[in-house]
Protein backbone atom coordinates (compact mmCIF):
# COMPACT_ATOMS: atom_id res chain seq x y z
CA UNK A 1 0.00 0.00 0.00
CA UNK A 2 1.16 3.52 -0.76
CA UNK A 3 2.51 5.41 2.22
CA UNK A 4 0.64 8.58 3.13
CA UNK A 5 2.42 11.89 2.53
CA UNK A 6 1.21 13.26 5.83
CA UNK A 7 0.18 11.17 8.77
CA UNK A 8 -1.07 12.64 12.03
CA UNK A 9 -2.04 10.72 15.16
CA UNK A 10 -3.45 12.13 18.36
CA UNK A 11 -2.40 15.73 17.75
CA UNK A 12 -3.12 17.78 20.85
CA UNK A 13 -2.67 21.51 21.39
CA UNK A 14 -2.86 23.12 24.81
CA UNK A 15 -2.75 26.85 25.47
CA UNK A 16 -1.99 28.01 29.01
CA UNK A 17 -4.38 30.85 29.86
CA UNK A 18 -5.12 32.88 32.95
CA UNK A 19 -7.55 30.41 34.49
CA UNK A 20 -5.89 27.13 33.55
CA UNK A 21 -5.27 25.35 30.28
CA UNK A 22 -7.27 25.77 27.12
CA UNK A 23 -7.48 22.40 25.39
CA UNK A 24 -7.80 23.89 21.95
CA UNK A 25 -7.21 20.75 19.89
CA UNK A 26 -7.63 17.25 21.24
CA UNK A 27 -6.51 14.02 19.63
CA UNK A 28 -6.70 14.71 15.91
CA UNK A 29 -5.93 11.83 13.52
CA UNK A 30 -5.75 11.84 9.76
CA UNK A 31 -3.75 10.61 6.78
CA UNK A 32 -3.27 12.40 3.52
CA UNK A 33 -2.06 10.81 0.30
CA UNK A 34 -0.23 12.61 -2.48
CA UNK A 35 -2.61 14.48 -4.72
CA UNK A 36 -5.46 14.16 -2.27
CA UNK A 37 -7.60 17.01 -0.99
CA UNK A 38 -8.67 17.00 2.63
CA UNK A 39 -11.21 19.53 3.77
CA UNK A 40 -11.32 20.42 7.44
CA UNK A 41 -14.72 21.85 8.31
CA UNK A 42 -15.95 23.46 11.46
CA UNK A 43 -17.12 26.62 13.16
CA UNK A 44 -14.65 29.36 13.96
CA UNK A 45 -12.83 28.52 17.14
CA UNK A 46 -13.03 24.80 16.52
CA UNK A 47 -9.25 24.53 16.19
CA UNK A 48 -8.97 24.27 12.41
CA UNK A 49 -6.47 27.09 11.99
CA UNK A 50 -4.40 26.02 14.97
CA UNK A 51 -4.18 22.53 13.51
CA UNK A 52 -2.87 23.87 10.24
CA UNK A 53 -0.31 26.11 11.95
CA UNK A 54 0.79 23.14 14.04
CA UNK A 55 1.49 21.17 10.86
CA UNK A 56 3.65 24.01 9.55
CA UNK A 57 5.44 24.42 12.87
CA UNK A 58 4.25 28.03 13.04
CA UNK A 59 2.50 27.99 16.39
CA UNK A 60 3.30 30.67 18.94
CA UNK A 61 5.75 29.76 21.65
CA UNK A 62 3.08 29.59 24.32
CA UNK A 63 1.12 26.79 22.67
CA UNK A 64 2.08 23.27 23.72
CA UNK A 65 1.99 20.73 20.93
CA UNK A 66 2.01 16.97 21.41
CA UNK A 67 1.16 14.00 19.22
CA UNK A 68 1.81 10.30 18.87
CA UNK A 69 2.85 10.85 15.29
CA UNK A 70 3.28 13.76 12.90
CA UNK A 71 5.02 12.42 9.87
CA UNK A 72 5.59 14.28 6.63
CA UNK A 73 7.08 11.92 4.05
CA UNK A 74 9.46 10.36 6.56
CA UNK A 75 10.26 13.54 8.47
CA UNK A 76 8.98 13.67 12.02
CA UNK A 77 7.57 17.20 12.24
CA UNK A 78 7.20 16.89 15.98
CA UNK A 79 10.88 16.47 16.72
CA UNK A 80 12.38 18.12 13.64
CA UNK A 81 14.98 20.79 14.39
CA UNK A 82 13.99 24.36 13.51
CA UNK A 83 16.48 24.26 10.65
CA UNK A 84 14.92 21.10 9.22
CA UNK A 85 11.44 22.60 9.53
CA UNK A 86 12.59 25.74 7.75
CA UNK A 87 13.92 23.60 4.93
CA UNK A 88 10.47 22.01 4.56
CA UNK A 89 8.44 25.19 4.90
CA UNK A 90 7.95 27.11 1.73
CA UNK A 91 9.70 24.37 -0.24
CA UNK A 92 7.87 21.07 0.22
CA UNK A 93 4.95 22.35 2.27
CA UNK A 94 3.41 25.76 1.73
CA UNK A 95 0.57 27.68 3.26
CA UNK A 96 -2.00 30.19 2.07
CA UNK A 97 -3.48 32.37 4.80
CA UNK A 98 -6.91 33.84 5.19
CA UNK A 99 -6.00 37.53 5.25
CA UNK A 100 -4.62 38.55 1.87
CA UNK A 101 -4.76 42.22 2.86
CA UNK A 102 -2.22 41.86 5.66
CA UNK A 103 -0.28 38.76 4.71
CA UNK A 104 2.04 40.53 2.28
CA UNK A 105 4.89 42.68 3.55
CA UNK A 106 4.06 46.31 2.70
CA UNK A 107 7.72 47.27 2.35
CA UNK A 108 8.70 44.97 -0.53
CA UNK A 109 7.57 44.51 -4.09
CA UNK A 110 5.47 41.60 -5.22
CA UNK A 111 8.45 40.35 -7.19
CA UNK A 112 10.74 40.35 -4.16
CA UNK A 113 8.20 38.48 -2.09
CA UNK A 114 7.35 35.97 -4.80
CA UNK A 115 10.94 35.04 -5.52
CA UNK A 116 12.01 34.91 -1.88
CA UNK A 117 11.05 31.31 -1.16
CA UNK A 118 12.56 30.07 -4.41
CA UNK A 119 15.83 31.89 -3.80
CA UNK A 120 15.93 30.60 -0.24
CA UNK A 121 15.36 26.95 -1.08
CA UNK A 122 16.68 26.33 -4.56
CA UNK A 123 19.89 27.43 -6.17
CA UNK A 124 18.46 29.46 -9.00
CA UNK A 125 19.47 32.80 -10.39
CA UNK A 126 17.48 35.91 -9.63
CA UNK A 127 16.49 36.04 -13.32
CA UNK A 128 15.22 32.46 -13.33
CA UNK A 129 13.27 33.14 -10.15
CA UNK A 130 11.61 36.18 -11.69
CA UNK A 131 10.71 34.18 -14.80
CA UNK A 132 9.15 31.52 -12.61
CA UNK A 133 7.24 34.23 -10.73
CA UNK A 134 5.87 35.61 -13.99
CA UNK A 135 4.88 32.14 -15.12
CA UNK A 136 2.98 31.49 -11.90
CA UNK A 137 1.33 34.91 -11.84
CA UNK A 138 0.03 34.15 -15.31
CA UNK A 139 -1.11 30.75 -14.13
CA UNK A 140 -3.16 32.27 -11.31
CA UNK A 141 -4.76 34.54 -13.86
CA UNK A 142 -2.95 37.82 -13.33
CA UNK A 143 -2.55 39.91 -16.45
CA UNK A 144 0.54 41.98 -17.26
CA UNK A 145 2.38 39.69 -14.89
CA UNK A 146 5.89 41.03 -15.50
CA UNK A 147 4.92 44.58 -14.68
CA UNK A 148 3.28 43.41 -11.45
CA UNK A 149 6.64 42.28 -10.10
CA UNK A 150 7.62 45.88 -9.44
CA UNK A 151 4.38 46.77 -7.69
CA UNK A 152 3.79 46.96 -3.96
CA UNK A 153 1.01 45.07 -2.16
CA UNK A 154 -1.02 48.20 -1.45
CA UNK A 155 -1.38 48.74 -5.21
CA UNK A 156 -3.31 45.49 -5.63
CA UNK A 157 -6.89 44.59 -4.75
CA UNK A 158 -7.70 41.89 -2.23
CA UNK A 159 -8.49 39.35 -4.92
CA UNK A 160 -5.22 40.04 -6.71
CA UNK A 161 -3.30 39.81 -3.48
CA UNK A 162 -4.77 36.43 -2.71
CA UNK A 163 -3.80 35.25 -6.21
CA UNK A 164 -0.29 36.49 -5.46
CA UNK A 165 -0.35 34.56 -2.18
CA UNK A 166 -1.34 31.43 -4.09
CA UNK A 167 1.39 31.96 -6.66
CA UNK A 168 3.83 32.52 -3.82
CA UNK A 169 2.88 29.25 -2.17
CA UNK A 170 3.34 27.41 -5.47
CA UNK A 171 6.78 28.83 -6.29
CA UNK A 172 8.73 25.76 -5.14
CA UNK A 173 6.12 23.25 -6.33
CA UNK A 174 5.26 22.04 -2.84
CA UNK A 175 3.98 18.51 -2.26
CA UNK A 176 1.56 19.75 0.37
CA UNK A 177 -0.35 22.97 0.36
CA UNK A 178 -2.41 24.15 3.31
CA UNK A 179 -5.02 26.77 2.56
CA UNK A 180 -6.61 28.27 5.66
CA UNK A 181 -9.95 29.79 4.59
CA UNK A 182 -8.23 31.36 1.61
CA UNK A 183 -11.32 33.17 0.44
CA UNK A 184 -13.19 34.40 3.53
CA UNK A 185 -11.86 37.93 3.20
CA UNK A 186 -12.93 38.25 -0.44
CA UNK A 187 -16.07 39.07 -2.39
CA UNK A 188 -18.37 36.16 -3.05
CA UNK A 189 -17.82 36.21 -6.84
CA UNK A 190 -14.06 36.20 -6.40
CA UNK A 191 -14.25 33.46 -3.77
CA UNK A 192 -15.50 30.95 -6.31
CA UNK A 193 -12.84 31.89 -8.86
CA UNK A 194 -10.00 31.58 -6.36
CA UNK A 195 -11.18 28.20 -5.08
CA UNK A 196 -11.62 26.86 -8.57
CA UNK A 197 -8.13 28.04 -9.42
CA UNK A 198 -6.62 26.49 -6.32
CA UNK A 199 -8.35 23.21 -6.96
CA UNK A 200 -7.34 23.05 -10.63
CA UNK A 201 -3.72 23.90 -9.84
CA UNK A 202 -3.65 21.29 -7.11
CA UNK A 203 -4.82 18.63 -9.58
CA UNK A 204 -2.45 19.82 -12.25
CA UNK A 205 0.61 19.69 -10.01
CA UNK A 206 -0.53 16.59 -8.10
CA UNK A 207 -0.30 18.41 -4.80
CA UNK A 208 -1.84 17.17 -1.61
CA UNK A 209 -4.03 19.90 -0.23
CA UNK A 210 -5.57 20.65 3.12
CA UNK A 211 -8.37 23.13 2.66
CA UNK A 212 -9.77 24.67 5.78
CA UNK A 213 -13.19 26.16 5.35
CA UNK A 214 -16.61 26.46 6.86
CA UNK A 215 -18.26 26.48 3.46
CA UNK A 216 -19.73 23.01 2.93
CA UNK A 217 -20.75 23.87 -0.62
CA UNK A 218 -17.07 24.15 -1.47
CA UNK A 219 -16.25 20.95 0.34
CA UNK A 220 -18.80 18.97 -1.63
CA UNK A 221 -17.17 20.02 -4.89
CA UNK A 222 -13.46 19.61 -4.15
CA UNK A 223 -12.88 17.24 -1.24
CA UNK A 224 -11.58 13.70 -1.42
CA UNK A 225 -11.70 13.44 2.33
CA UNK A 226 -13.60 15.44 4.89
CA UNK A 227 -12.77 16.02 8.53
CA UNK A 228 -15.40 17.70 10.68
CA UNK A 229 -14.07 19.48 13.74
CA UNK A 230 -16.09 20.57 16.72
CA UNK A 231 -14.63 22.28 19.78
CA UNK A 232 -11.13 21.00 19.11
CA UNK A 233 -12.07 17.45 18.26
CA UNK A 234 -12.56 15.49 15.07
CA UNK A 235 -16.15 14.36 15.40
CA UNK A 236 -16.39 12.77 11.99
CA UNK A 237 -13.95 11.97 9.22
CA UNK A 238 -13.91 9.90 6.09
CA UNK A 239 -14.16 9.93 2.32
CA UNK A 240 -16.18 12.86 1.12
CA UNK A 241 -18.82 10.66 -0.48
CA UNK A 242 -19.42 8.78 2.77
CA UNK A 243 -19.57 11.84 4.92
CA UNK A 244 -21.98 13.58 2.59
CA UNK A 245 -24.13 10.55 1.87
CA UNK A 246 -24.32 9.17 5.36
CA UNK A 247 -23.48 12.02 7.71
CA UNK A 248 -23.31 10.24 11.02
CA UNK A 249 -22.41 12.65 13.75
CA UNK A 250 -25.37 14.82 14.79
CA UNK A 251 -23.17 17.88 14.40
CA UNK A 252 -22.29 17.03 10.79
CA UNK A 253 -25.94 16.65 10.00
CA UNK A 254 -26.61 19.94 11.71
CA UNK A 255 -24.01 21.60 9.51
CA UNK A 256 -25.44 20.07 6.36
CA UNK A 257 -28.91 21.29 7.23
CA UNK A 258 -27.51 24.80 7.33
CA UNK A 259 -26.80 24.87 3.58
CA UNK A 260 -29.60 25.23 1.09
CA UNK A 261 -29.67 22.56 -1.63
CA UNK A 262 -31.12 23.39 -4.99
CA UNK A 263 -34.18 21.29 -5.61
CA UNK A 264 -34.32 19.90 -2.10
CA UNK A 265 -34.68 22.97 0.08
CA UNK A 266 -38.08 24.44 -0.37
CA UNK A 267 -38.38 28.05 -1.37
CA UNK A 268 -39.26 30.19 1.61
CA UNK A 269 -38.50 27.50 4.17
CA UNK A 270 -36.11 28.43 6.94
CA UNK A 271 -32.59 27.08 6.86
CA UNK A 272 -31.46 24.99 9.77
CA UNK A 273 -29.45 26.40 12.59
CA UNK A 274 -27.72 24.67 15.45
CA UNK A 275 -28.92 26.25 18.67
CA UNK A 276 -26.52 26.86 21.53
CA UNK A 277 -22.93 27.95 21.81
CA UNK A 278 -19.57 26.21 21.72
CA UNK A 279 -18.54 25.29 25.26
CA UNK A 280 -15.48 26.69 26.98
CA UNK A 281 -12.49 24.41 26.58
CA UNK A 282 -10.66 25.66 29.63
CA UNK A 283 -10.06 23.07 32.30
CA UNK A 284 -10.76 19.34 32.02
CA UNK A 285 -12.85 18.45 29.04
CA UNK A 286 -14.69 15.19 29.25
CA UNK A 287 -17.21 13.38 27.15
CA UNK A 288 -18.77 14.69 23.99
CA UNK A 289 -18.33 18.42 23.61
CA UNK A 290 -21.44 18.69 21.43
CA UNK A 291 -23.82 17.23 24.01
CA UNK A 292 -25.05 20.61 25.20
CA UNK A 293 -26.43 21.33 21.73
CA UNK A 294 -27.26 17.81 20.61
CA UNK A 295 -30.89 16.76 20.28
CA UNK A 296 -29.96 13.16 21.14
CA UNK A 297 -27.86 13.89 24.22
CA UNK A 298 -28.23 11.62 27.19
CA UNK A 299 -26.45 11.03 30.48
CA UNK A 300 -23.83 8.70 28.97
CA UNK A 301 -22.56 11.50 26.74
CA UNK A 302 -20.59 12.73 29.74
CA UNK A 303 -18.47 9.59 29.72
CA UNK A 304 -15.78 8.65 27.22
CA UNK A 305 -17.14 8.53 23.70
CA UNK A 306 -16.37 5.50 21.54
CA UNK A 307 -14.91 5.83 18.05
CA UNK A 308 -17.25 4.23 15.57
CA UNK A 309 -15.63 3.10 12.34
CA UNK A 310 -17.36 1.98 9.19
CA UNK A 311 -14.45 1.26 6.90
CA UNK A 312 -12.50 4.51 6.59
CA UNK A 313 -15.50 6.48 7.76
CA UNK A 314 -15.10 7.35 11.45
CA UNK A 315 -17.25 9.28 13.89
CA UNK A 316 -17.46 9.66 17.63
CA UNK A 317 -20.85 9.23 19.19
CA UNK A 318 -22.46 7.35 22.03
CA UNK A 319 -25.12 6.17 19.61
CA UNK A 320 -24.03 3.29 17.36
CA UNK A 321 -25.19 5.02 14.18
CA UNK A 322 -25.15 8.57 15.52
CA UNK A 323 -28.97 8.44 15.46
CA UNK A 324 -28.95 9.17 11.77
CA UNK A 325 -31.96 6.93 11.18
CA UNK A 326 -33.88 8.56 13.96
CA UNK A 327 -33.47 11.84 12.19
CA UNK A 328 -34.39 10.48 8.80
CA UNK A 329 -37.63 9.24 10.30
CA UNK A 330 -38.37 12.63 11.71
CA UNK A 331 -37.69 14.46 8.48
CA UNK A 332 -39.37 11.85 6.32
Amino acid at each position, binding site marked *: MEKPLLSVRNLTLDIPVGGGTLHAVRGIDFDLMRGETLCIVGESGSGKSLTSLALMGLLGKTIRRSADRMDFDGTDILTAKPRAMRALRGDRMAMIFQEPMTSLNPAYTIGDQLTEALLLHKSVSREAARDRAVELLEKVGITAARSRLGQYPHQLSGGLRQRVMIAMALMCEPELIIADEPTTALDVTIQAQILRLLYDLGREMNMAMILITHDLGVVARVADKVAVMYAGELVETGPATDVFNTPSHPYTRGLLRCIPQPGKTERGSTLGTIPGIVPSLI*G*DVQGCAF*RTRCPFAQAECKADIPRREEGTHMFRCIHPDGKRHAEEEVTA
Partner: protein
Amino acid sequence: MTQVETHDPILAEITGPTPGQMLRKRVFGHQGLMIGVVVLVILTLVAIFAPLLAPHDPYAQSLMTRMEPPVFLGGDWEHPLGTDHLGRDYLSRLIYGARVSLMIGVIAALISGVIGTAMGVAAGYFGGRVDMVVTFLINVRLAMPVVLVALAVVAILGGSLQVVIVVLGLLLWDRFAVVMRASTLQVRGREYVAAARAIGASTPRVILSEIMPNIANNLIVVVTLEMAHAILLEAALSFLGLGVQPPTPSWGLMVSEGKNMMLFEPWMVLIPGAVLFILVLAINLMGDGLRDVTAPENRS
Protein backbone atom coordinates in the same frame (compact mmCIF):
# COMPACT_ATOMS: atom_id res chain seq x y z
CA MET B 1 -12.19 32.90 42.81
CA THR B 2 -15.56 31.21 42.87
CA GLN B 3 -16.50 28.24 40.77
CA VAL B 4 -20.04 28.22 39.45
CA GLU B 5 -21.80 25.00 40.26
CA THR B 6 -22.72 23.14 37.11
CA HIS B 7 -23.61 19.58 36.39
CA ASP B 8 -21.71 19.59 33.18
CA PRO B 9 -17.96 19.67 33.45
CA ILE B 10 -17.48 21.11 29.98
CA LEU B 11 -19.69 23.99 30.93
CA ALA B 12 -17.77 24.59 34.13
CA GLU B 13 -16.64 27.97 33.00
CA ILE B 14 -14.08 29.54 35.17
CA THR B 15 -15.95 32.59 36.29
CA GLY B 16 -13.54 35.45 36.25
CA PRO B 17 -13.25 38.10 38.89
CA THR B 18 -15.48 41.17 38.55
CA PRO B 19 -14.13 44.16 36.61
CA GLY B 20 -13.55 45.99 39.88
CA GLN B 21 -11.54 43.13 41.30
CA MET B 22 -9.59 42.86 38.08
CA LEU B 23 -8.72 46.55 38.14
CA ARG B 24 -7.66 46.29 41.75
CA LYS B 25 -5.56 43.26 40.93
CA ARG B 26 -3.95 45.08 38.02
CA VAL B 27 -3.24 48.15 40.10
CA PHE B 28 -1.82 46.35 43.11
CA GLY B 29 -0.09 43.75 40.96
CA HIS B 30 1.75 46.41 38.98
CA GLN B 31 5.13 46.70 40.68
CA GLY B 32 6.23 49.90 38.97
CA LEU B 33 2.94 51.64 39.70
CA MET B 34 3.02 50.67 43.38
CA ILE B 35 6.64 51.72 43.85
CA GLY B 36 5.92 55.03 42.12
CA VAL B 37 2.80 55.75 44.18
CA VAL B 38 4.43 54.86 47.50
CA VAL B 39 7.52 56.99 46.86
CA LEU B 40 5.44 59.88 45.61
CA VAL B 41 3.12 59.76 48.61
CA ILE B 42 6.10 59.76 50.97
CA LEU B 43 7.74 62.71 49.20
CA THR B 44 4.45 64.61 49.14
CA LEU B 45 4.00 64.09 52.87
CA VAL B 46 7.57 65.24 53.42
CA ALA B 47 6.85 68.39 51.40
CA ILE B 48 3.61 69.11 53.26
CA PHE B 49 5.07 68.57 56.72
CA ALA B 50 8.44 70.12 55.94
CA PRO B 51 8.37 72.52 58.91
CA LEU B 52 7.76 69.62 61.28
CA LEU B 53 10.31 67.29 59.72
CA ALA B 54 13.21 69.60 59.01
CA PRO B 55 15.70 69.56 61.90
CA HIS B 56 16.91 73.08 61.14
CA ASP B 57 15.86 76.29 59.44
CA PRO B 58 16.80 75.74 55.78
CA TYR B 59 17.94 79.35 55.49
CA ALA B 60 19.94 79.55 58.73
CA GLN B 61 23.60 80.06 57.89
CA SER B 62 26.39 79.16 60.22
CA LEU B 63 29.89 80.04 59.23
CA MET B 64 31.27 77.86 62.00
CA THR B 65 29.84 74.67 60.55
CA ARG B 66 30.41 74.97 56.81
CA MET B 67 30.61 71.93 54.54
CA GLU B 68 30.31 69.34 57.28
CA PRO B 69 30.11 65.85 55.80
CA PRO B 70 27.04 63.64 56.17
CA VAL B 71 27.02 60.99 58.91
CA PHE B 72 27.94 58.18 56.54
CA LEU B 73 31.09 60.08 55.66
CA GLY B 74 32.03 60.71 59.26
CA GLY B 75 29.81 63.68 60.15
CA ASP B 76 27.69 63.93 63.28
CA TRP B 77 23.95 63.54 63.80
CA GLU B 78 23.44 67.25 64.32
CA HIS B 79 23.50 67.53 60.51
CA PRO B 80 22.66 64.03 59.21
CA LEU B 81 23.34 64.99 55.60
CA GLY B 82 25.99 67.59 56.38
CA THR B 83 25.94 71.30 55.65
CA ASP B 84 26.56 73.35 52.54
CA HIS B 85 29.09 76.07 51.79
CA LEU B 86 27.13 78.54 53.94
CA GLY B 87 26.69 76.14 56.83
CA ARG B 88 23.01 75.51 56.09
CA ASP B 89 21.65 72.10 57.07
CA TYR B 90 21.56 69.95 53.91
CA LEU B 91 18.74 67.67 55.07
CA SER B 92 16.50 70.62 55.90
CA ARG B 93 17.18 72.20 52.53
CA LEU B 94 16.41 68.92 50.81
CA ILE B 95 13.13 68.63 52.69
CA TYR B 96 12.09 72.16 51.77
CA GLY B 97 13.33 71.54 48.23
CA ALA B 98 10.66 68.86 47.86
CA ARG B 99 8.10 71.65 48.24
CA VAL B 100 9.64 73.63 45.40
CA SER B 101 9.84 70.68 43.04
CA LEU B 102 6.36 69.36 43.75
CA MET B 103 4.78 72.80 43.58
CA ILE B 104 6.44 73.46 40.24
CA GLY B 105 5.41 70.06 38.93
CA VAL B 106 1.78 70.28 40.03
CA ILE B 107 1.05 73.89 39.10
CA ALA B 108 2.94 73.88 35.81
CA ALA B 109 1.21 70.65 34.80
CA LEU B 110 -2.14 72.19 35.77
CA ILE B 111 -1.61 75.31 33.70
CA SER B 112 -0.29 73.47 30.67
CA GLY B 113 -2.93 70.79 31.15
CA VAL B 114 -5.75 73.34 30.93
CA ILE B 115 -4.27 75.00 27.85
CA GLY B 116 -3.31 71.83 26.06
CA THR B 117 -6.51 69.96 26.85
CA ALA B 118 -8.68 72.84 25.70
CA MET B 119 -6.75 73.04 22.44
CA GLY B 120 -6.58 69.30 21.88
CA VAL B 121 -10.24 68.62 22.65
CA ALA B 122 -11.35 71.54 20.51
CA ALA B 123 -9.21 70.33 17.61
CA GLY B 124 -10.40 66.77 17.93
CA TYR B 125 -14.04 67.62 18.43
CA PHE B 126 -14.57 70.39 15.90
CA GLY B 127 -11.99 69.28 13.34
CA GLY B 128 -11.67 71.38 10.17
CA ARG B 129 -10.21 74.84 10.62
CA VAL B 130 -9.94 74.57 14.39
CA ASP B 131 -7.95 71.41 13.99
CA MET B 132 -5.70 73.01 11.39
CA VAL B 133 -4.96 75.97 13.62
CA VAL B 134 -4.26 73.83 16.67
CA THR B 135 -2.05 71.45 14.72
CA PHE B 136 -0.15 74.42 13.39
CA LEU B 137 0.30 75.87 16.89
CA ILE B 138 1.56 72.51 18.11
CA ASN B 139 4.08 72.48 15.28
CA VAL B 140 5.25 75.97 16.17
CA ARG B 141 5.53 75.11 19.81
CA LEU B 142 7.54 71.95 19.08
CA ALA B 143 9.92 73.93 16.90
CA MET B 144 10.82 76.28 19.76
CA PRO B 145 13.70 74.95 21.88
CA VAL B 146 12.08 74.70 25.35
CA VAL B 147 15.14 75.06 27.53
CA LEU B 148 16.40 78.03 25.58
CA VAL B 149 13.07 79.86 25.44
CA ALA B 150 12.33 79.16 29.10
CA LEU B 151 15.79 80.37 30.10
CA ALA B 152 15.49 83.51 28.01
CA VAL B 153 12.03 84.42 29.26
CA VAL B 154 12.87 83.70 32.90
CA ALA B 155 16.03 85.77 32.52
CA ILE B 156 14.08 88.67 31.04
CA LEU B 157 11.30 88.59 33.62
CA GLY B 158 13.62 87.85 36.52
CA GLY B 159 14.01 84.44 38.13
CA SER B 160 11.53 83.62 40.83
CA LEU B 161 9.47 80.58 41.69
CA GLN B 162 6.28 82.14 40.32
CA VAL B 163 7.87 83.17 37.03
CA VAL B 164 9.41 79.74 36.51
CA ILE B 165 6.09 78.04 37.21
CA VAL B 166 4.14 80.26 34.83
CA VAL B 167 6.72 80.08 32.05
CA LEU B 168 6.91 76.28 32.23
CA GLY B 169 3.13 76.09 32.40
CA LEU B 170 2.85 78.17 29.25
CA LEU B 171 5.45 76.10 27.42
CA LEU B 172 4.62 72.48 28.23
CA TRP B 173 1.12 72.16 26.77
CA ASP B 174 2.20 70.46 23.54
CA ARG B 175 1.92 66.86 24.68
CA PHE B 176 -1.48 67.55 26.27
CA ALA B 177 -2.71 68.99 22.99
CA VAL B 178 -1.32 66.10 20.90
CA VAL B 179 -2.67 63.33 23.13
CA MET B 180 -6.02 64.94 23.87
CA ARG B 181 -6.58 65.67 20.19
CA ALA B 182 -5.93 62.05 19.26
CA SER B 183 -8.08 60.71 22.12
CA THR B 184 -10.95 63.03 21.29
CA LEU B 185 -10.82 61.98 17.64
CA GLN B 186 -11.13 58.38 18.77
CA VAL B 187 -14.00 58.99 21.13
CA ARG B 188 -15.88 61.44 18.92
CA GLY B 189 -17.10 58.73 16.57
CA ARG B 190 -18.48 56.46 19.26
CA GLU B 191 -22.18 55.70 19.49
CA TYR B 192 -22.78 57.29 22.87
CA VAL B 193 -21.49 60.62 21.60
CA ALA B 194 -23.78 60.41 18.59
CA ALA B 195 -26.60 59.43 20.92
CA ALA B 196 -26.01 62.40 23.18
CA ARG B 197 -26.01 64.68 20.17
CA ALA B 198 -29.13 63.05 18.82
CA ILE B 199 -31.09 63.81 21.99
CA GLY B 200 -30.06 67.43 21.60
CA ALA B 201 -27.32 67.83 24.16
CA SER B 202 -25.42 71.09 23.75
CA THR B 203 -21.83 71.04 22.55
CA PRO B 204 -20.30 71.96 25.93
CA ARG B 205 -22.43 69.29 27.52
CA VAL B 206 -21.35 66.63 25.05
CA ILE B 207 -17.72 67.57 25.58
CA LEU B 208 -17.92 67.70 29.37
CA SER B 209 -20.11 64.72 30.05
CA GLU B 210 -19.45 62.41 27.12
CA ILE B 211 -15.97 63.17 25.81
CA MET B 212 -14.00 64.19 28.89
CA PRO B 213 -14.79 61.19 31.10
CA ASN B 214 -13.69 58.91 28.32
CA ILE B 215 -10.36 60.55 27.69
CA ALA B 216 -9.57 61.17 31.37
CA ASN B 217 -7.34 58.06 31.49
CA ASN B 218 -4.98 59.45 28.92
CA LEU B 219 -5.13 62.89 30.48
CA ILE B 220 -3.95 61.57 33.84
CA VAL B 221 -1.04 59.80 32.20
CA VAL B 222 0.06 62.98 30.43
CA VAL B 223 -0.34 64.98 33.66
CA THR B 224 2.16 62.73 35.39
CA LEU B 225 4.63 62.81 32.51
CA GLU B 226 4.45 66.59 32.25
CA MET B 227 4.84 66.97 36.02
CA ALA B 228 8.08 65.05 35.73
CA HIS B 229 9.08 67.13 32.72
CA ALA B 230 8.42 70.42 34.53
CA ILE B 231 10.33 69.32 37.61
CA LEU B 232 13.34 68.32 35.51
CA LEU B 233 13.22 71.59 33.59
CA GLU B 234 13.04 73.70 36.71
CA ALA B 235 16.02 71.85 38.11
CA ALA B 236 17.95 72.39 34.88
CA LEU B 237 17.04 76.10 34.81
CA SER B 238 18.02 76.57 38.43
CA PHE B 239 21.20 74.57 37.84
CA LEU B 240 22.12 76.98 35.06
CA GLY B 241 21.55 79.81 37.53
CA LEU B 242 18.61 81.23 35.59
CA GLY B 243 15.69 79.64 37.37
CA VAL B 244 14.71 79.78 41.00
CA GLN B 245 17.14 82.16 42.71
CA PRO B 246 19.15 81.65 45.91
CA PRO B 247 18.57 81.28 48.77
CA THR B 248 15.42 79.29 47.86
CA PRO B 249 16.17 75.61 48.44
CA SER B 250 15.74 74.13 44.94
CA TRP B 251 17.39 70.80 44.27
CA GLY B 252 18.74 71.96 40.94
CA LEU B 253 20.24 74.98 42.65
CA MET B 254 21.78 72.76 45.31
CA VAL B 255 23.49 70.67 42.63
CA SER B 256 24.74 73.87 41.04
CA GLU B 257 26.09 75.19 44.36
CA GLY B 258 27.66 71.83 45.12
CA LYS B 259 29.31 71.73 41.71
CA ASN B 260 32.08 74.08 42.80
CA MET B 261 32.96 71.77 45.67
CA MET B 262 32.60 68.66 43.51
CA LEU B 263 36.31 67.88 43.44
CA PHE B 264 36.52 67.41 47.22
CA GLU B 265 32.92 66.90 48.33
CA PRO B 266 31.12 64.98 45.57
CA TRP B 267 28.28 64.13 47.97
CA MET B 268 27.10 67.73 47.72
CA VAL B 269 26.21 67.04 44.09
CA LEU B 270 25.21 63.42 44.48
CA ILE B 271 22.61 63.81 47.23
CA PRO B 272 20.28 66.50 45.79
CA GLY B 273 20.59 64.99 42.30
CA ALA B 274 19.71 61.54 43.62
CA VAL B 275 16.61 62.87 45.37
CA LEU B 276 15.56 64.66 42.20
CA PHE B 277 16.13 61.47 40.22
CA ILE B 278 14.04 59.45 42.67
CA LEU B 279 11.14 61.91 42.59
CA VAL B 280 11.05 62.04 38.79
CA LEU B 281 11.48 58.28 38.57
CA ALA B 282 8.54 57.78 40.95
CA ILE B 283 6.30 60.07 38.92
CA ASN B 284 7.28 58.39 35.66
CA LEU B 285 6.76 54.92 37.11
CA MET B 286 3.32 56.03 38.23
CA GLY B 287 2.53 57.47 34.80
CA ASP B 288 3.72 54.37 32.94
CA GLY B 289 1.86 52.20 35.43
CA LEU B 290 -1.36 54.13 34.99
CA ARG B 291 -1.05 53.77 31.24
CA ASP B 292 -0.59 50.01 31.56
CA VAL B 293 -3.41 49.61 34.03
CA THR B 294 -5.98 51.73 32.26
CA ALA B 295 -5.22 50.39 28.79
CA PRO B 296 -5.11 46.61 29.20
CA GLU B 297 -5.09 46.12 25.46
CA ASN B 298 -1.73 47.89 25.30
CA ARG B 299 -0.07 45.54 27.70
CA SER B 300 2.26 43.02 26.11
